[in-house]
């Protein structure tokens, strides 16, 4: 068990592609961290560098305080559960799991004992004699996890572990993986592009994009306090509405006026200081679909913005409204019971405590 520390890690491939840029990240001992990002964000390169399948271009990596930059994969005592499972087809499940122990010349009776222990933990004792080709997806997944765990790794990495499973199995394995982490207490890193997986399993989430670490934190921190527009837009489903505005001073009141002239919103006091401090020319206003109230068009509230219904779908548990506000389309999650038709006039009210402001020039949160 160990802490994993990445300091100023860079990965540049031949041909000059910068896959990872100045990555600083500490995964605490026993922590379950998710590395989350769209494809091509550098998360897989990071994972491969941690495991040792890819050279580190520059920077330092420590596992349990030990510099591992130059160590071979097997000397780092890390384990990786591959996205494709990568089981050894000629070997039985038992031999697959025992393979790494044999490499270390662990005594025979101990191998049997340890394989049995992880097999019990993963509930695969009944398939130990079978070959990988005879197994279903979920079973292969378990075998691949067992193979990774049997060596008692300091750091346990999983690369998109659930992406090849069907929906029901995926939900089940999410719970299993979480239980496994609780049971083993290993430092665990989950690489995924699926925020639901990250949220469901990990204690902290590291969001990456274009090779750069954007934000690390609990789901609550990342969801409620995104540091930039990318994180704001990437986390949350449906994604956050982003509306370009300009601050307008009128008397002693500060307004945000949409660039397309579609609305004017009195700025809540709590945000006023931020806007004044930043001196940003254009401000992107972000608000999540579930933080918008749909009001009757006769509403007199000063921060209710008139909009026109484009589409409304009742999805059973919730309704999804797309409304035109100026030239922009705003997505709103509503009660499924509303009865709205295309062209209806409504008023939208952004919950003042749930409004996010970003400097449009830098995309950073104010």
């Amino acid at each position, binding site marked *: 068990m160990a802490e994993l520390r990445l300091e100023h890690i860079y990965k540049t491939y031949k041909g000059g592609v910068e896959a990872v840029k100045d990555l600083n990240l500490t995964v605490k001992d026993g922590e379950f961290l998710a590395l989350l990002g769209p494809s091509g964000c550098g998360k897989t390169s990071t994972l491969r560098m941690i*495991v*040792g*399948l890819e050279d580190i271009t520059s920077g330092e990596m420590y596992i349990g305080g030990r510099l591992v930059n130059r160590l*071979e*994969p*097997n000397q780092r005592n*890390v*384990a*990786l559960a*591959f*996205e*494709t499972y*990568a*089981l*050894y*087809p*000629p*070997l039985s499940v038992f031999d697959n799991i025992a*393979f*790494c122990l044999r*490499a*270390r010349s662990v005594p025979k009776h101990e191998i049997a004992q340890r394989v049995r222990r992880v097999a019990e933990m993963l509930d695969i004792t009944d398939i130990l004699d079978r070959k990988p080709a005879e197994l279903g997806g979920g079973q292969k997944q378990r075998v691949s996890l067992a*193979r990774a765990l049997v*060596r008692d790794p300091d750091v346990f990495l999983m690369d998109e572990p659930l992406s090849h499973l069907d929906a029901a199995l995926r939900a089940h394995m999410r719970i299993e993986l979480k239980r496994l982490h609780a049971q083993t207490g290993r430092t665990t890193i989950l690489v995924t592009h699926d925020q639901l997986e990250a949220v469901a399993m990990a204690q902290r989430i590291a969001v990456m994009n274009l090779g750069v670490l954007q934000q690390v934190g609990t789901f609550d921190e990342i969801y409620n306090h995104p540091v930039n527009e990318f994180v704001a837009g990437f986390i949350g489903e449906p994604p956050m509405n982003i509306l370009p505005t300009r601050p307008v001073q009128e008397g002693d009141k500060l307004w945000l006026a949409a660039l397309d002239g579609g609305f004017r919103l009195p700025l809540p006091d709590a945000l006023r200081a931020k806007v004044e401090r930043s001196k940003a020319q254009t401000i992107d206003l972000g608000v999540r679909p579930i933080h918008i109230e749909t009001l009757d068009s006769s509403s007199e509230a000063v921060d209710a913005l008139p909009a026109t219904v484009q589409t409304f779908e009742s999805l059973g548990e919730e309704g999804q409204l797309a409304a035109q506000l100026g030239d922009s389309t705003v997505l709103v999650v509503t009660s499924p019971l509303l009865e709205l038709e295309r062209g209806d006039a409504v008023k939208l009210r952004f919950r003042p405590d749930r409004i996010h402001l970003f400097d449009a020039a830098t995309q950073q949160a104010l």
Partner: protein
Amino acid sequence: MQSKVSNNRLAAILSDGFLGLYFIFALFPLLWMVLVSLKSGEELFTTQFVFTPTLENYQAILFGDPRAAAGVVARQEFPRFFMNSLIVSSGAVILSLLVGVPAAYALARYRFRGKEDLAFTFLSFRFAPELVVIIPLSVLYRQLGLYDTYWGIIWVYQLVTLPLLIWVLRSYFEDVSPDIEQAAMIDGYPWWRIFWSILLPLVRPGLAAAALLAFVFAWNNFIFALVLGGSNVQTVTVSALGYISSAQAFFNRMAAASVLASIPQIVLALSIQRYLIRGLSFGAVKG
């Protein structure tokens, strides 16, 4: 419903019948060869299927002809030619395996400059008819002292066996996910152990099929062995010429020799049959 079932049955019978006909058509030359090898000289040019079989042809080529005619040489040396064929063909396949397996792996896994050109060059050995290169080769062989040596024949057979092996195995290696090798690396195995205990078992069908085909091609090769080999390394294919002389053509003995010469191929093919169907069809599509 009823008619559909009987239709299916009719189709099955028809296709079985067609396959049977084709089977007879394809195997008839073999059957004829066996029949001829059992005929005596007097019956040789008849088309009789019913005759008194004799083993004298086999006896003649294996142990010498008791009624040896002058001018017809070396027929009793068949066992030696057979051994020669065995040595150069197995030698060629073994050398091709030693060189071709790593080459196929490298072509499948690594990215390097000129990779496709190199692969194509190997393949191009199979394009040109052997006759095109045989004269310069024979000049070279005489200068290098490779003429009429086992090494010389084994070497030149690489033109036949190596491209086949490389191209079939390459597609097999490409089909094995690199993840598997990386998993084994993380597990702490040296590359040669990974190669031996994980990769080779996975490509075994391809290996068996390609090696068998290479063996057959080498065994059947005529022109290289004829021109580059002398009496020391004469193979069964070349020795078949010895049954025809200006005075007499011993087609029955030639047939007997051919029957014996086909035994190693048949034995090999049967012994690795279970890999063969998968291996060949796979290689055909991919390679």
